[in-house]
């Protein structure tokens, strides 16, 4: 029975990972994508734990749900700071208060 239940856990985590990966690709705005990517990292960590790989889960948790999304957010902030990318001109220091989806594309 424990084996069957582990299989169920693995299957649910697998479907969650597949759905999160699809959502990460379909969210075209990088800020939103960063949030979905951190969810993907989280669900991968769960899947890896169920596959009896806690070492890999730890490293996926640290990288996938913290470092990678943070780097993406910082890059977005840098890239959107200056006018000229189709977005509205933005003077002054960024205070992080601007909404997502100002990249010349409407938010989905």
């Amino acid at each position: 029975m424990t084996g069957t239940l582990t299989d169920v856990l693995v299957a649910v985590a697998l479907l969650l990972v597949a759905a999160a990966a699809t959502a990460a690709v379909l969210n075209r705005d990088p800020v939103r994508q960063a949030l979905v990517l951190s969810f993907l990292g989280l669900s991968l960590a769960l899947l890896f734990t169920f596959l009896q790989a806690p070492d890999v889960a730890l490293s996926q948790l640290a990288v996938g749900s913290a470092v990678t999304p943070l780097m993406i957010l910082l890059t977005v902030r840098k890239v959107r700071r200056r006018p000229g990318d189709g977005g509205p001109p933005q003077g002054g220091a960024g205070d992080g208060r601007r909404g997502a989806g100002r990249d010349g594309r409407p938010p989905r």
Partner: protein
Amino acid sequence: MTVLPYLVAGWIFLVGVYGLVTSRNLIHAVGCLAVAQSSTYVLLLAVGYRRGGTAPVFSDVPPDRRVVDPVVQALALTDIVVGATVTALLLALVVQLRKRHGTVDPDALSDLKG
């Protein structure tokens, strides 16, 4: 269940590449590459799984327990590190591109060249 994990790995890879192909923003493309990379972790760990096995970490179980394959786990670990560094380097390149050409749209960039 005997092939589901492999197929999910394939799906994640193809979805990631689809995002790369259709992306209009290089930052989004880097994110898609990270997605495509994660398919390799899933595939590696799926190959190494053994039903009824536990992690080959003997801090709290005796060493004669049935365990899963540690070699693929070590490979996946290396994979994740390399994936993270690739992401970092690519994002640095995106910042640099934005400085030089003022855009992060790959199509606009190829127009610049031609």
